């Protein structure tokens, strides 16, 4: 099972670096990371990959770029954040992991705020104008994205609902006549965002709650534990369905609700870790130095107890994506926005019809994404602690 390494050479490699190296070495994690990168890239560059607006076109000798003009604030914010992530990656040697994540999130929030205020694409959009214009010669020339259909482009000029994959629509069309491939590409955004944001919320609440719970034993812990048990016993899906049904179908609300209902696991993990850590010398030393509480908890104890939480977070992303998929499948997901599960729901039509392409592609996408995060989680778990795998009920 495990080979015991008898050489006792001291390595100056940090724990997190070793874990990352060890994780990436595993084949499962490599596959998982590859797929997550594919989903991330198609999510970030979605408007450039699948769009009815041409990159540029020539009308009466004038060159314009409808694609740029129609970018939404979220598109711009995502691109800026991606740029920041690339810069941080290039500077990875002089930045710590936490600081890098911090910089990326701050840039993301600022970019979202600014672009929300400044970017205002035209509201009325006629998708067929380009096709019609090209056909009757109004538009002299145009260069389109690889998939020349927007996710909400229902081809009003030539409706083709539920057509099988072909030369025009590579993955067929859905029940409304929208291009499945385009919707697939744009939906990867929602999958990515739901997973990261919901798990991020759960992670932060869980860390704060579990940290406090593990540090202060006694009646504080007992009270907090009771409250945690309430949250643990709520069937998450029921609560999410109730909230969405009562408050309306809103992506941010769904993210928050999934996040707010899935923190107890993280809190439990961290509590167990902190109960062990608080007796250790370095914590006693930090206390003796008179460091403030937040510093002891989150600068000294957290980095030593965060590892099992990362494993849980990886599985948490998978389950958040699944929850969103179930919501969309039940018809409680987003309105009009592309979603993998909503397309899957259209595969079996009334009257026993079955659109194979609507079942395979979106279903495969959900499966691969969930599988990828589960594989990363498994690899991370094995890398962090080979013994963790053997614990009967973590």
């Amino acid at each position, binding site marked *: 099972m495990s080979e015991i390494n008898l050489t006792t050479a001291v390595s100056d490699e940090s724990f997190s670096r070793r874990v990352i190296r060890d994780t990436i070495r595993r084949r499962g994690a490599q596959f998982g990371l590859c797929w997550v990168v594919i989903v991330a890239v198609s999510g970030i560059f979605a408007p450039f990959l699948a769009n009815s607006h041409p990159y540029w076109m020539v009308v009466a000798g004038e060159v314009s770029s409808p694609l740029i003009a129609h970018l939404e604030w979220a598109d711009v914010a995502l691109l800026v954040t991606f740029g920041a992530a690339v810069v941080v990656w290039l500077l990875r040697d002089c930045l710590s992991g936490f600081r890098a994540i911090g910089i990326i999130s701050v840039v993301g929030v600022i970019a979202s705020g600014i672009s929300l205020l400044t970017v205002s694409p035209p509201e009325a959009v006629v998708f067929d104008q380009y096709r019609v214009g090209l056909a009757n010669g109004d538009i002299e020339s145009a260069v389109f994205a690889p998939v020349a259909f927007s996710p909400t482009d229902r081809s009003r000029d030539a409706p083709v609902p539920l057509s099988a994959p072909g030369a025009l629509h590579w993955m067929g069309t859905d029940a409304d006549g929208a291009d499945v491939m385009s919707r697939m590409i744009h939906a990867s955004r929602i999958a990515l965002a739901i997973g990261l944001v919901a798990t991020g919320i759960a992670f932060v609440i869980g860390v704060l709650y579990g940290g406090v719970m593990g540090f202060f034993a006694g009646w504080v812990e007992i009270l907090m534990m009771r409250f945690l048990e309430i949250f643990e016993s709520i069937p998450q899906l029921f609560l999410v369905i109730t909230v969405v049904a009562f408050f309306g179908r809103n992506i941010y609300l769904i993210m928050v609700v999934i996040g707010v209902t899935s923190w107890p696991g993280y809190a439990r993990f961290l509590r167990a870790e902190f109960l062990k850590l608080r007796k250790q010398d370095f914590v006693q030393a930090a206390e003796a130095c008179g460091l403030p509480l937040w510093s002891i908890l989150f600068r000294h104890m957290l980095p030593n107890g965060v590892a099992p939480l990362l494993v849980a977070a990886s599985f948490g992303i998978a389950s958040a994506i699944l929850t969103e998929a179930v919501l969309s499948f*039940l018809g409680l997901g987003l309105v009009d926005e592309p979603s993998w599960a909503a397309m899957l729901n259209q595969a079996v039509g009334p009257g*026993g019809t079955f659109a194979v392409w609507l079942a395979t592609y979106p279903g495969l996408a959900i499966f691969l994404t969930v599988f990828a995060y589960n594989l990363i989680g498994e690899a991370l778990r094995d890398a962090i602690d080979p013994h963790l795998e053997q614990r009967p009920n973590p």
Partner: protein
Amino acid sequence: MVNYIIRRILLMLPTLLGITLLVFAIMAIAPGGVGASLLSSSGDLRPEERAAMEAYLNQRYGLDQPLPMQYLRWLNQVSPIGFAKDENGVEQGFGLKVPNLGMSFAKNRPVTQLVAEALPITLLLNFLSVPFIFVLSIVMGVYTARFRGQALDVGIGTANLALWSVPVIWAGVLLIGFLASDEYLNWFPTSGLESLQADRWTFLPSASGDGWQRGYLLDAMWHMVLPVICLTYTGFAFLTKLTRSSVLENLQADYARTARAKGASESTVLWHHVFRNSLLPLFTVAASILPGLLVGSVIVESIFSIDGMGRLVVQAAKLRDREVVLSITLITSLLTLVSYLLVDICYAAADPRVSYE
């Protein structure tokens, strides 16, 4: 032990209170509240009609009372101890009474009736799938432990992780599409739990004058094949892995070495000595898969149009049917908590080393 059980049951009360309060609060602070959809569902009304409707709803469900009062009213209604009223609305005083889950807003029927129709269906589906999950994953777990590191172990491990990642919604759609649609194999029914003519059939298959008919039992089983598959396959990964690690641990234990030392064959060691000791951890997780199965039944029931608890709760939430949502939340949480307790008791009963005193 009795002390422990009583303490656990008493601890359930605040938990249940908290859960119902949370769900109640969510519904109460939603824009429009619970009354909005009731009013809008009755279509366009003239102002005086609207006022009359509002007054009727307020009088019937107490919707004009302050929110804490409404919650206390509901609590009193569902609790077995409280202020009872007889059929004429006359106060009977404080004491034991029959818990009442209230009336469904949308369907205008007692919630107890709705639940009594739906709960057996959901429980039936779950009780059918649990034995499958356990038997198959125990067998897989034991064999992967026995052949650890070999092709069988790696293969089953990866296959289970993959199966675990297959979303139930996808599996359900594929099963219906390929095995139950007109365009491919039409082997199974797409929806429901019984054929239209089933109520005219006998219980067992029989052949009469007008030919062979499959009977009620066989018909129901035929309808349940696909839903049970959907509920079953996701459970394997976790339990198999658990059995595997537990068997591995026990295979290296001292008593297993003693058995080998006295000359027992490897299969005797595995099946007579190690196997029974390895099943203990499975008890603890039997509880944790129950909530998962209940959630799974929301999805499976929606895909296969089965009128169980899952479908009931989705419909009720969409219709803002407060009483139904609250009751189902209460019942599901109660089931979950009770199953946690039962498992802890079983655990102590099965393993003399475990004690809660």
